[in-house]
């Protein structure tokens, strides 16, 4: 079976539409980030999270009112299925007190619906800021390392364009997290440590995809004249298109499986990677390589690639 064969799509010609589309997506995301912000989890803002599971179905609203009466602030939401509830609060202090408070209040009100405390996570504000800093360092470090590696293996322009593409991907996913955050109950899209892992995975995937295109450009461009660059770039993208689509396909396949089966704890994570793979594939075809060529045209130097 062969779905994509001998394509000759003019990717470079479509770049302006692509740039505009990306810009719109990124600006929408940034606008939402500024206005609405992100839905940070306790990893980054501190606080306590409790997951309760009941024997029978239960309404989050009922639990919410019971806990409000018991004097516990914060949010109470359904968690994954009809029997589970997620309580998030800025409670700090003796977790045992919190446990007793929740359990006794709920037992009083729902005597026929036994519950179990499945998980209690509590993160102090001091460690939360530390985790944020570590996450920032991880992402900055990843970008610097990628820049260096691609610059060594290819050329600085290629490296810079690939880092732009990564920024593009991460910004779009981050923007989507802000726009959709809290909209769907099954997928609250809180930003926690696992989302940082997702972003680094997206960065890794995006560069992986871009490098495959670059590699073909490197191969095709040998001895080519600057006048041929546009044709060579387009050919290279087209030649690698089948691989790009299939690898994205298999990766998407497993990420969708993760999204469906792996439960609420990593649903945000799988959603991030799902979007990231789509955007990353798009950016390596429509953004990264065309950017290199645009840059080259502007300054008109021949491309000399290292490595092979």
């Amino acid at each position, binding site marked *: 079976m062969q779905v994509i064969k001998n394509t000759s799509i003019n990717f470079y010609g479509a770049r302006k539409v692509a740039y505009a589309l990306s810009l719109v997506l990124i600006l929408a995301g940034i606008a939402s980030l500024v206005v609405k912000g992100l839905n940070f989890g306790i990893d980054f803002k501190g606080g306590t999270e409790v997951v309760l599971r009941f024997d029978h179905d239960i309404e989050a609203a009922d639990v919410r009112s019971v806990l409000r009466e018991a004097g516990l602030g914060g949010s109470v939401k359904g968690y994954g299925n009809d029997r589970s509830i997620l309580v998030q609060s800025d409670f700090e202090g003796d977790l045992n007190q919190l446990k007793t408070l929740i359990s006794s209040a709920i037992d009083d009100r729902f005597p026929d619906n036994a519950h179990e405390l499945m998980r209690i996570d509590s993160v102090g504000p*001091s460690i939360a800021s530390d985790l944020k800093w570590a996450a920032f360092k991880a992402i900055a470090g990843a970008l610097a390392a990628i820049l260096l590696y691609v610059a060594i293996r290819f050329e600085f322009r290629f490296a810079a364009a690939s880092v732009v593409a990564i920024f593009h991907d991460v910004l779009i996913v981050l923007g989507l997290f802000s726009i959709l955050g809290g909209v769907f109950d099954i997928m609250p899209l809180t930003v926690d440590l696992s989302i940082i892992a997702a972003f680094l995975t997206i960065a*890794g995937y995006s560069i992986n995809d871009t*490098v495959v295109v670059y590699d073909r450009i490197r191969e095709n461009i040998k001895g080519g004249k600057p006048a041929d660059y546009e044709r060579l770039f387009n050919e290279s993208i087209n030649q690698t298109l089948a691989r790009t689509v299939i690898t994205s396909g298999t990766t*998407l*396949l497993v990420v969708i499986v993760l999204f469906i089966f792996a439960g609420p704890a990593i649903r945000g994570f799988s959603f991030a990677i799902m979007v990231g793979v789509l955007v990353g594939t798009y950016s390596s075809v429509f953004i990264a390589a065309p950017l290199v060529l645009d840059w080259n045209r502007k300054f008109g130097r021949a491309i000399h690639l290292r490595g092979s």
Partner: protein
Amino acid sequence: MKNNRFTGILITALTALALWSLWPTWQDYSYSRKITGFTTVEDSLKYHEEHREQIEHAAEKSLKLGLDLKGGMYLVLEVDLVDLLRERAWNKDAKFEEIMSVVEQKSAGVNTHIISLLQEEFQAEGIRMSRYFYDVRDTDEEIVGKLEREASQALSRAKEIIRNRVDQYGVAEPVIQTQGARRIIVALPGISDQERVRKLLRGTAKLEFKLTRDRESLLDALERINAYVQSAPSEIGAAEDTENPLYNHVVVMDNGRAYVPDYSREMLQKLFQQDVMEKLLPKDSELAFSARTIEGRDAGRYHDLYMLKKTPELTGGVITEAKATFGASALQPEVTMKMSSEGTSKWARITGANIGRQIAIVLDGAVYSAPVVESKIPGGSSVINGIGSLEEAQDLEIVLKAGALPAPVRIIEERTVGPSLGADYIRSGLLSSSWGLFLVMVFMILYYRKAGVSADIALVLNVLFVLSVLAGFGAALTLPGIAGLVLTIGMAVDANVLIFERIREEIAAGRNFRMAVDNGYSKAFSAIIDSQITTLGAGFLLYIYGAGPIQGFAITLMIGTAASLFTALVVTKGIFDLLISRNLMNEKSFG
């Protein structure tokens, strides 16, 4: 042909190694199935006894499950280094306290360079550190060096003490490690009594023997404090015109004893820690509450209030042995202690000099008991009573044996996963990895036919390698780790896709089949290397900077990517070479 044989041997050897490393996991699994499969408890116990050695060996070598899959507690403790610095300082005055509170604020959320922070503050104030620390002749650098050493010693001592406590409590496979300059990570699988563990870890276990001041001076001091809070009623949450606001929270009995209701304790404790107390209390004195409450006439819970001499007569360092028992007379749980020879002679001198007076036994600032010394105690023995339950006595025994922490620790992060949630995670993890594997394999066969089958073999080997490396190195499998594995399944075929597409191109360009396959591998090589190295790099950074659960994800992603290099470049090539040499493969085999 020779090359071919070498590849074959390499693949077989590595596969065998992987299976060997996973064998205990399989054994462990089948033993536990067998044991739960018996109808009676006796049978399973008997089976367990008979096969004890094999079962334990298998469990030890098998693939470990992380806390989130097994259930348990994950805690991050922070050693209060600022408190340690306060302790080490002398000549403390208002200026010092001012600097320390700035340091305390700035150090919140920082896990490194606490001492340099202190130095910066001192430099900003233009004060030499030797005014408060060590010898006046020391330079700032010398003092910083000494304090750094002391801080790092305090951290490792705290870790050892916590390990002792955890070991004595009895937790299977605990993980205790230091992180940065003042954090200790404690992972305790399968813990059920979280509250007990929390207390056990948090308590400093600072044991002190202190003389009590007599009742008259306690009552006088209370009068003075009352007068003070009348002038500053907000200190005690009272209204402006309340008369005797202190006595709303302190009940003085006719016999001269003072009691504090449980609900007022925290508030009063804060009040009693204020600097102004130095003026209100007699010199070298402090107020302390009893650890245990008694029931008052109104059925409320009350703490005893004591006034103690601040400087302890003796501290817990002299304790060599502790044992939880029941007291002879009232069947009350208590902890008996033995002292070192040096402690014994001191204790004899102290008790001898204070016959008829009360000596309070104070643990972490709370008075456990304050017996009246009836005679000189020459044998170096002492008893803590006033303990609520035998369980509490046993925990006291543990912390006393393990020794006191060099500085207070706080729990700054705590994650608890109940066992049934862990079981859920395992189920959904298994479900998603098997579905992911199945779908990708089916797709590869549909799209690449015979070549797809060989890619699938490579993929299965890949999963096998990831699991065996995890088991072999004793790394735990976590839920994010499973996510990493599933993702690896999707991404590992990438190298093969690159190669296969390249081979198709070569075939389309009219090359002879054998050439096309070889060209496909060699031309795809640079793309594979460059793209996989970047993925490995991202995984590595995740591992370095990622906290706890994220590291599990990073590890499986890294092993998976590295393994996919081998399986794609060596395994599928080996299979192709074999098939081609037997004429079992041609242009059509690539779909």
